[in-house]
């Protein structure tokens, strides 16, 4: 049944030059407004307003290209990019590659939003403040928290913000000198370790139990101390397994005097099913660009919405949008706030879309999202059984929520073809490569699909059929996967240069300098 024949596929190949090689001197992409004659007369030459040392001497070596050619180039580059909208993007576990409705793109593109300035008088931006405020109320209901801030520009940034609040909390209590440790788990997102570290904390990581995949509660008990500032934890971790003792974890930390931050970037299976606050967490963050359908934008703009319990609202970044006397306000008067983590109010475009998405779903729709996500995942697990070379990590736990981690250890051993080869080979079928897993690879040769509610049963069947096809092929002819991709816009690159100072090149100018002949004609 999963022996479906793959459809023919080939990516667009345009062999585009780097834009700095394009155009020719004198061409123009757009005309610039000149100053009016009257202004020209009234003011001096521009140079007289610039200290002479500060006048640019060399023209920047930017390309000079006419408009249709700029457009053509970037349209071609877009065609060489496999967006979620174009494919069965099930492979990117932890990323929740869900449908971003077009209607939301239209709404967020309205000048009533795009042409508003963050420092406008409150009274002139009541519309957008209303959306922020209403969406915060929705997020409170979804999470059980008391207040939200949308300032952080991504999930990691949300975690960093939470770490800053934990820091502030202990600082104000006068305990920061002692409380300098954050506990996390190895299967929590790397940001749950890296961001508190940036905020100045030492990190303790709990390792997963080899049988259950879950962090050991005994290890936690050993880890806590008077140095414990808090817990920053993902759940379900990117194994898709829900930690059933999560509230006990929280209790242990609380008893030790720490705060608990729930990384809910992967919340897609939990809408209306379980809430952070109900498990005792003090704070949490959501990735609005994932479960809340704001598009991933090639890697942002994004939002790591942070929510906190009533006790911690005072620490949230300023301003908070409040509603009083029928008017929305920006409340800056919050003396214990950590201040700003991002200039202005965050990537509010993500909030316009997310508000529109949630309000187009409702409570029933949201729950359907989660239920479908869970059904899809477990259906995929069922379909994946018996593919040669593939095993599910922690098979004793036979149920997963939003995602599931597999291993190609056996395939690798049998054929020499590893998970990165298979990922590259998948693309030859018009399916986005999968995400292996975050490091360290406790599960060897991992991969991590997340078949969220966007994908149909047929999509899942097809995706599994490609995994099977590629694994079968790896046994029959391992060379194909090892040298993949074959039907793509480019072929396998030499990874070596990326860590070699003599060869890496982050700009065209560096590339030209390091290569007598540029790569491309």
């Amino acid at each position, binding site marked *: 049944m999963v022996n479906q024949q793959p459809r023919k596929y080939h990516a667009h190949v345009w062999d585009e030059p780097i834009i700095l090689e394009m155009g020719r001197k004198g061409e123009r992409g757009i005309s610039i407004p000149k100053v009016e004659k009257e202004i020209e007369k009234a003011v001096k030459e521009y140079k007289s307003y610039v200290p002479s040392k500060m006048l640019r001497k060399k023209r920047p070596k930017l390309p000079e290209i006419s408009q249709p050619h700029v457009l053509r180039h970037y349209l071609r580059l877009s065609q060489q990019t496999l967006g979620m909208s174009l494919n069965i993007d099930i492979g990117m576990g932890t990323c929740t590659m869900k449908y971003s409705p077009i209607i939301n793109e239209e709404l967020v593109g309205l000048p009533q939003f795009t042409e508003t300035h963050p420092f406008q008088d409150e009274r002139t931006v009541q519309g957008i403040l209303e959306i922020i405020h209403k969406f915060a109320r929705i997020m409170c209901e979804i999470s059980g928290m008391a207040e939200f801030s949308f300032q952080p520009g991504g999930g990691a940034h949300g975690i960093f913000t939470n770490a800053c609040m934990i820091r502030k909390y202990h600082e104000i209590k006068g305990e920061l000198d002692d409380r300098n440790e954050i506990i996390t788990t190895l299967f929590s997102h790397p940001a749950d370790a*890296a961001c508190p570290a*940036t905020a100045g904390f030492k990190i303790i990581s709990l390792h997963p139990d080899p049988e259950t995949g879950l962090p050991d509660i005994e290890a936690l008990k050993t880890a806590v101390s008077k140095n414990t500032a808090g817990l920053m934890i993902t759940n379900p971790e990117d194994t898709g397994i829900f930690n059933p003792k999560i509230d006990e974890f929280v209790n242990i930390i609380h008893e030790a005097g720490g705060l608990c931050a729930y990384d809910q970037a992967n919340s897609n299976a939990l809408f209306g099913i379980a809430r952070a606050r109900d498990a005792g967490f003090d704070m949490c963050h959501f990735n609005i660009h994932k479960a809340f359908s704001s598009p991933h934008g090639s890697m942002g703009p994004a939002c790591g919405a942070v929510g906190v319990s009533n006790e911690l609202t005072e620490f949230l970044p300023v301003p908070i949008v409040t509603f009083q006397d029928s008017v929305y306000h920006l409340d800056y008067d919050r003396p214990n706030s950590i201040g700003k983590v991002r200039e202005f109010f965050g990537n509010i475009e993500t909030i316009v879309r997310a508000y529109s998405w949630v309000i187009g779903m409702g409570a029933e729709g949201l729950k359907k999202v989660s239920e479908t996500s869970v059904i899809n995942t477990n259906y995929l697990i069922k379909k994946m059984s018996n593919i040669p070379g593939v095993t599910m990590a922690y098979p004793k736990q036979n149920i997963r929520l939003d995602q599931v981690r597999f291993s190609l250890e056996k395939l690798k051993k049998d054929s020499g073809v590893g998970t990165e080869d298979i990922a590259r080979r998948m693309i030859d079928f018009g399916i986005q490569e999968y995400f292996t897993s975050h490091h360290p690879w406790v599960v060897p040769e991992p991969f991590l699909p997340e078949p969220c509610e966007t994908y149909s049963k047929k999509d899942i069947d097809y995706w599994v059929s490609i995994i099977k096809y590629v694994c079968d092929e790896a046994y029959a002819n391992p060379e194909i996967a090892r040298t993949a991709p074959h039907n793509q816009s480019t072929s396998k690159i030499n990874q070596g240069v990326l860590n070699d100072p003599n060869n890496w090149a982050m700009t065209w100018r560096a590339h030209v300098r390091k290569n007598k002949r540029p790569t491309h004609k």
Partner: protein
Amino acid sequence: MTKNRELVHPYIPNSVPEVTNEMLKEIGAKSVEDLLKGIPKRLRFKRSLNLPEPFLVEMELRNHVEEILSKNKTCKDYLSFLGAGCWQHYVPAVVDEIIHRAEFLTAYAGNTYSDLGKWQAFFEFQSMMGELLEMDVVSLPTFDWGTAVAFAIRMSSRMTGRNEVLVPKIISPERLSIFQNFCQSKRAPNNIDINLVDYDSKTGSIDLDDLKKKISSKTAAVYIENPSYLGIIESNGEEISNLAHNNGSEFIVGIDPISLGILNPPAEYGADIVCGNIQPLGLHLNFGGGVGGFIASRDESKYVSEYPLHLVSIAKTEDKKGFGFGFCSFDQTLYITREKGKDFTGTTVALWTIASAVYLSLMGPEGLRQIGETIIQKSHYAAQTLSKIDNLEIIFSPNFFKEFVVNFDETGKKVDEINKKLLTKKIIGGKNIANEFPNFGNSALYCITEMHSKKDIDRLAAALEEVLK
């Protein structure tokens, strides 16, 4: 046909009850509850979410959201003079077209094989910024200018092993607050102290004497902005650079990239690390959403090995016939080494870099020069015109680029009050900085760009005359 009770949602194909049932059967589960049993009962949410009635019909959803947003007054309907880190520049239609493309809009973490075009656009962004900045390494941006500088400060602290940084007193309070969060509370173990350097009260530029006084063997980096938060073009870049370098400190400069068609790039006066906001390069205001902060440096391992951000490098294919891209020194990011990585990155503002790449390729060197000239002449025309109004004073002329400070002390009216009156004339006045910089009295920061016509400026002047009389 769908039963009334079951919601079949257009965004959820498998919400069709027959499909759900088939799948559950295949799984061997009776209901979805079977699959949720890994969540202990005590943690299960017992009631329904108490959310507003949904708008399941797209037409009604559209009406609903449009109605809310229509309560905003925009900088399109109104004449706005706000800047302060989020500036109203013209966004060419081609820019919006490209970043609207479903491929770019919905791509994410795919590598160079599936997403060659996205990677190439990133590399082109870095490359064109490199030309503008005359620097060989440019990162993919982080969330904003403030965070970029904060990371740069932390980079220089790690590089120098020192834990103090000098930043100008005239700086965006928002940016400063971000630095503080990144440089950590004084109580935290490895904090970086932020010391403010005074300004020359006439020109608004860095007070070199104060800088000399404050720089020390603890100074990891000296940071300045050019133009500064209040619009002033700093002319002592070279001196400051020498001071920093002679002291073994890094010299970090924050810039407004749209000024670089006419202003000297910091590399020319010795900057080691350059940061800034890409918002002027093709991004809408988006209520402050359209910003992004890049870091650039020389192409030396000591810098490259400290970047927390993604660095896209070009790489030849194994057959040497083509090329692709990958992340340089990826191992130093959190993704590989977790808390041992260099600070952190994450999902940031990639789509904005594509916008900026398109913008820069449309503009070219001539476009940037012309826009620089236009802006500086228009802003000086505005300053000149406003300064003719009784009791108005422009502080810090004549070396400003697109923003300047207007002082209203002599008018006897508060900025807020004036701005309120301007609003009734559909004018959004400059940002009130009386609270941010009490030293400058009752002042506002006005911003002029290529989007302001002479008529607009004259209209402002007339309105101010009226409001002030």
